[in-house]
């Protein structure tokens, strides 16, 4: 069971206090989008063996949403950060690169 830190209320607590909601930084496509765009937004998700950016909610705590950067293989947590961002903040990217020198945000985006 993971230990997760909520950046909104500052609590570090057990996974059961939180709920994971899948991939972070999705761009919403609404009316006017093509079928491919909409399909990709609604259904297509990354499933990496390694660094993953995720949406979490402090469900049995402050109720707020946030993001977690985590390794799906080792379960190492690189950091939690605000849900109100379109991309991971530089500080998180640096933390990941410190631990995973081969990883780059550019390769991640492509």
């Amino acid at each position, binding site marked *: 069971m*993971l230990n997760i830190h909520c950046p909104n209320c500052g609590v570090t607590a057990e996974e059961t206090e939180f709920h994971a909601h899948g991939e972070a930084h999705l761009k919403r496509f*609404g009316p006017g989008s093509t079928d491919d765009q909409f399909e990709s937004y609604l259904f297509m998700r990354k499933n990496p063996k390694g660094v993953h950016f995720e949406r979490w909610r402090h469900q049995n705590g402050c*109720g707020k949403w946030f993001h977690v950067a985590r390794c799906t293989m080792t379960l190492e947590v690189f950091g939690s950060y605000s849900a109100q961002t379109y991309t991971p903040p530089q500080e998180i990217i640096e933390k990941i690169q410190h631990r995973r020198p081969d990883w780059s945000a550019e390769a991640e985006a492509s």
Partner: protein
Amino acid sequence: MSTRLATPGRLIDRNKPLNFTFNGKNMRGYAGDTLASALLANDQMLVGRSFKYHRPRGIVASGAEEPNALVNLGRDGRFEPNQRVTTTELFEGLEAQSQNHWPSLEFDVGAINKHLSRFLPAGFYYKMFMYPRAFWKHVYEPVIRHSAGLGKAPKSRDEDSYEHFYAFCDVLVVGGGVAGLQAALTAGRTGARVILFEQTDHWGGRAPVDGGMVDGAPVDNYVDETLAALKLMDNVQIRLRTMGAGVYDHGYVLGYERLSDHAPDQAGPRHRLWRVRAAQVITATGAIERPLSFAGNDIPGVMLASALRDYVVNYGVSVGDRTVVVTNNDNAYLTAITLKKAGLDVPVILDARVLPEDRGLVAQARALGIRVLMGHAVSSVMGGKRVTGVKICSQAGEGSVLEEIPCDAIAMSGGWSPVVHLWSHCGGKLRWDSATACFAPDVDNPPKGADGMGFVTPAGAAAGVFALDDVLHDAHAAAEGAATCLDFKLPRDVTSPTAERREESPMAPVWMMPQGASAKLREKSWLDYQNDVKVSDVRLAAQEGFVSVEHAKRYTTLGMATDQGKLSNINGLATLAGALDKDIPSVGTTTFRPPYHPISLASIAGEAKGHIFQPIRRTPMHDWHAANGAEFEPVGQWRRPYAYKRGLESTHDAVMREVTNTREKLGLLDASTLGKLIVKGPDAGRFLDMMYTNMMSTLKIGKCRYGLMCSENGFLIDDGVVARIDEDTWLCHTTTGGAETIHAHMEEWLQTEWWDWNVYVANVTEQYAQVAVVGPNARKALEKLGGMDVSKEALGFMEWVDGTLGGFKVRVYRISFSGELSYEIAVDAGYGQAFWDALLAVGTELGAMPYGTECLHILRAEKGFIMIGDETDGTVIPQDLGLGWAISKKKTDYLGKRAQERSHMTDPDRWKLVGLETVDKSTLPDGAYAVGEGTNANGQRNMIGRVTSTYHSPTLGRGIAMGLVLNGPERMGEILSFPGTDGKDYEAKIVNPVFYDLEGEKQNV
């Protein structure tokens, strides 16, 4: 025979005799005995039957690894099957029953299977029970069900209580042997917060049995002194009878404490589940001795050498008068020496090795006059329910008998396997140590924590370090290392104790005995005692292509019994490696999964059972309902009255009465559970336009509008009436079950997508009690309460107003879920009961009666109103339900809009909502499917619709239903056939879903 010796036992107290029964027979033991030692002291060697062949089985081990000796323990509310006699402490009045035999332990009909073993090889179930197909259900399964299974399932409710315990520490040490004690002491001296768990009821593990000198004194003294030192440390917490059950992500460890298994009369919980967060974990879990694979190694009386030694030293119990020792290592010589010194006979030690010289224990044994045969092995064991002798042969050969030696016990040792379970649970890797022929933790690849660093360190025998001196140094270093990771410093003058070293010859791996054992011998050489897997079975699996260890395990069931292969795994995979001509590390191990040893399900449940399993939510009027005949039904965590029964009437009759009374006079519904969400802020209107399919921003202050909410997938998830309170405030009603999820849904979009919109959402569901006043007399009732104008002119349909009624501050919504003249009135929750009482008082002469949820359902179904969860199931869009009128055409966007444009959603063949009217006025079965022409690919009749809601309508005197039907709205008047599970065909006509008051005249008065 096995018996109690005159020599003292370390752990028993001869001044405290205890009485117990085994299969109804009265027996005696002492305080400190395990059930195993007490049974052996009473010459009860035969304790059970094996799973498949029903072979007689005796006790093999002395600890958690025991595969055979499982019993049913206790009775009634304290009955528990599959309890290990080796981990069961004896207490006065203990009752045990042996398992898996019929009619009796001594004479078991199932034992015929052993004569059929030629026909019951590995994978037998898969090969045999395939054909003919019909045989499975009617012949094979009933027979298997009768014969399979170990203990009996308990029939009574568990009488005991259980609890969870949360703990946090810097260093958790699992295992209270010398390695664990030393690790806890060293870690404790750094100032770290330490917890130490030991699964048995005593400290020191097996070191005191095996002997040795630590810092010039017997190891017993070392254990006592270390324990005394630990007890004085405020930062160290120690627990006996607590097993480290599993190690999980980020330093989460489960401990399983057995508080009163040994003292059933003690007050308090029986088991306690420790949920520990440890920054560092030290696994000092010891090692388990391996059996040797020789023919007849499962006959009662064949035991692990270390176990025999334990019974003599710890409990003063001898397993036999004449014990043959068979080994591939020095360690088993300790058993021979111990037995000899206890005055028992050891006719011979069979050592599979050929050693160049006698050193250490070998020399000691010879000096005691024990005959030692090097390069020798067991060809086969003689005896049935008890060992009577052994045939010996050369280890190098194929088993030709050189000599027969009578004996009544055999002590075997195939070397030691570190207990790597806890190390492995969370991803710790293993390395093969060829010197000791075992898998040991690969310390360079530990389980990793949240920071990506290792958080588990093995210590002592669990790390593959066996000599006492090495164990102490290793444990000291492990603890210092773990504490240092956490920035704790060990004082400079603290060093590890030192033990005297023994001269030792290396062990030699022996996976089959003799090494060229014939097929006949291999068929009698057991690997897994509990599941009856033999060397021949694993070789057959390899021959049939099950070359992966995980596949071979499942095909043969090796290691899949309740002992999870603690004795059998290494021998099994070595046998597999041999059959595949591979080396052991390349075959690998199966996965170690928690728990290490079975733990009670009740301990996992902890306090969460019965009425405190989940919180129950009650409305302010709950007690009144309970006192007035309410039959409750759960709606989420709420309890809502289903119907109020009067006198002797049936529930059905009560519901019918409530419907008729509400239609004709006046009904009162406790609607407090409906979700109430306040949505407020400058962007609230814009936000609600995204949440709902219809337009909410244009709603006028003082007005109400029915709204639909969809997920981004387009599916209908909730509905309810929205009221505009003021310029920037809306109140959204949700379904009872939807209040929390819809609140969360709104928050999700506000926090993660439109975080720059100024909107605040508050869930005020529990702040208000809400009563629906429904029926032709509704207005009269409110007028009798008085205080505000509720006339049609002052408060029209779909309007709300604040005011007072009967002195209560109220908000009145004129909305209707029944088709009747109806007001929903909200008061502060604290006034709920008083307001309810006031309504009943003025309502008496108007025919007021409370009604429940079933009546509510019938009223809405008669009007063709949908219900979330009945008409919807997560695959239904509003368009399917004829709710197109509630979907804004003007809005450019709302959640679900784009999805509803997908081809599947606009498919004209989607099933659509219709009303269904049975031809004979009966009630359609719930969930029934309508069948059409032809059959599908599986030969089943094609389905063209299904029933979503079905009731008997007392208003119409007939069965009415709603359903989703292929092209339904275009097929009005057509009659469909719904086959019921009762074998009957129900016929129903497609009609308009509004069965009652199509024009809506009744609600508009």
